[in-house]
């Protein structure tokens, strides 16, 4: 239980960072923390006590194994996170070029 709560705490810290920070890079970091917490939660959910990694070789022939499905999902999600971070950083670079700062208080041409 404590692990899951800590995992959720990491999620909340990331959310807090995204909402309160005023620096573009810090916002990206906050989003990355939120992603990390979900990855960890997925792998924690799929863990089976005393089981092996789901890879067969000469010594490990039969189970119990941990759940491979959350691992496959996290593998996908890591790459998705990388892709969205790359897009965010590209926009951040462009914004820096236009405004000369990473401070979102100074990036406010639109009203929202």
């Amino acid at each position: 239980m404590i692990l899951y709560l800590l995992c959720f705490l990491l999620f909340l810290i990331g959310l807090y960072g995204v909402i309160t920070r005023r620096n573009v890079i810090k916002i990206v970091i906050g989003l990355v923390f939120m992603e990390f917490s979900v990855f960890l939660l997925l792998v924690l959910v799929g863990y089976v006590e005393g089981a092996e990694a789901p890879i067969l070789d000469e010594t490990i022939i039969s189970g119990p194994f941990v759940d491979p499905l959350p691992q496959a999902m996290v593998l996908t999600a890591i790459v998705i996170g990388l892709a969205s971070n790359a897009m965010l950083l590209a926009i951040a670079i462009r914004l820096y070029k236009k405004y000369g700062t990473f401070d979102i208080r100074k990036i406010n041409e639109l009203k929202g």
Partner: protein
Amino acid sequence: MSQLIPLFVIIPLVAAFLIPIIGKFLDGFQKVLTSIAFLGLSVLTVYFLCAGPGEPLLYAVGGWEPVRGIPIAIYLVADGLSIFMLMITNVVGFLVSIYSISYLKRFTAQNNFFALLCLMMGGMNGVVLSGDLFNLFVFMEIAVIASYALVAFGIEKQELEASFKYQVLGGIASVLILFGVTMLYWKTKTLNIADAGNILRSSQDRSFVIFTQLFLITGFGLKAALIPFHAWLPDAHSSAPSPISAMLSGVLIKAIGIYAIIRLFFNMFTLSDEMAVTITALGAVSMVLGSFLAMYQWDIKRMLAFSSISQVGYIVTGVGMGMIILARNGDHRVAALAISGGLFHMINHAAFKGLLFLNAGAIEHETHTRNMKSLGGLSRSMPITASTSMGASLAISGIPPFNGFFSKLIIIIAAIQGKFYLLAALAVLISIITLAYFMKFQKYTFFNKPGARDRKKIKEVPFAMCFSMIVLAVLCLGLSLLIFPGIREVVLDPAVRVIMNASEYAPSITGL
């Protein structure tokens, strides 16, 4: 027939991968390929609509049969609702791709634009066909990452800022949705929507269900831009290139926002009264505040963007009322009426809001401004744009015989029959306000005295742009035919049936 389902994803993706390779050497290839691919998708959708057998079509990717009654593969599901959504995405996408051919002449990197458009299309088709929670998330990400790039396509200050806001809020939404999917996997140990629905129905764990539902409704609400999660929409929709605004507003927020909400909350979760009231309240608030905010705008595209929030509110209100009635075990006929009103408004909104954004793009293309105050008298120099946008404005404000009138009427009738008198009154009031601000748009843009600009240079937009606008205007009139039983039974009723009978959706997949 179910053999053809993967084509909806394969065609746009292959087109998207071919464009950067061949488009580099062959100029014009990207436009032709995109248009042909989207035309093919539209034809395929119409085929599915007309020749569909009525019951959900299933496709197990990889050919993995269920083991002991548990589905283990990713299922593609083409049921009434999916085909209905496919029709919206593919037809609007095709017209937008035609329109973009001329609109894009001023921009560089056309290859990238069309590749991203194809990717966005593939993502949305994947979302509406998916019968698997995580697969839905993956394809949603394809669509939204492509749209992040497309919003920033002009790489000017405003576009970049809008895209940044959109990305941050979209990123939060994606993580929230992934968190919800994780919670569901934790509880149900499966990712198949129908299988998960069966397990959720048989268990009584209210605190878990409410918590997960809140995460998912926040995530998908952010994607659908329901108030109070709307902060990104006015900026993103007004800054993007106009064809992309039409795609975002007409298709994307519906395919990845509202569709996902409908699919998960009707077909997977057990209907609960609180969640139904929450969704309806979100819809009603969006409907009212969106139109009040739209009234004060002088930028054409910002006004249209706020009006999108308001119209999406209508859709969600209609569907939400049906959900409340079903959750309280009320009259099923009224629920069906409310839901069909919501769905009908969804397809109508795709037609007229897509058209209005294309009109705004045509105006911007010729006059280089979006400010209503500096426009005027365009009805003479741009007759096609003026007449089509007049039709769309009348349709969105609910004037007969345009399609918007009928869908709003159905929603209002359902609200009265279901004894939601306040919602019915609000829907009428907001319809009048919508009429007011669209008449303002018409007056300042097309009829007032010409502004200070040089009138001589302004002429009608090129043929490709006119073509898309005219077809959409015809659709605005033609979609009124959906109220006739013969046509309604083909298009709307299968979708409504899927939404109403959660218990029918599940056995067709897990029962086998």
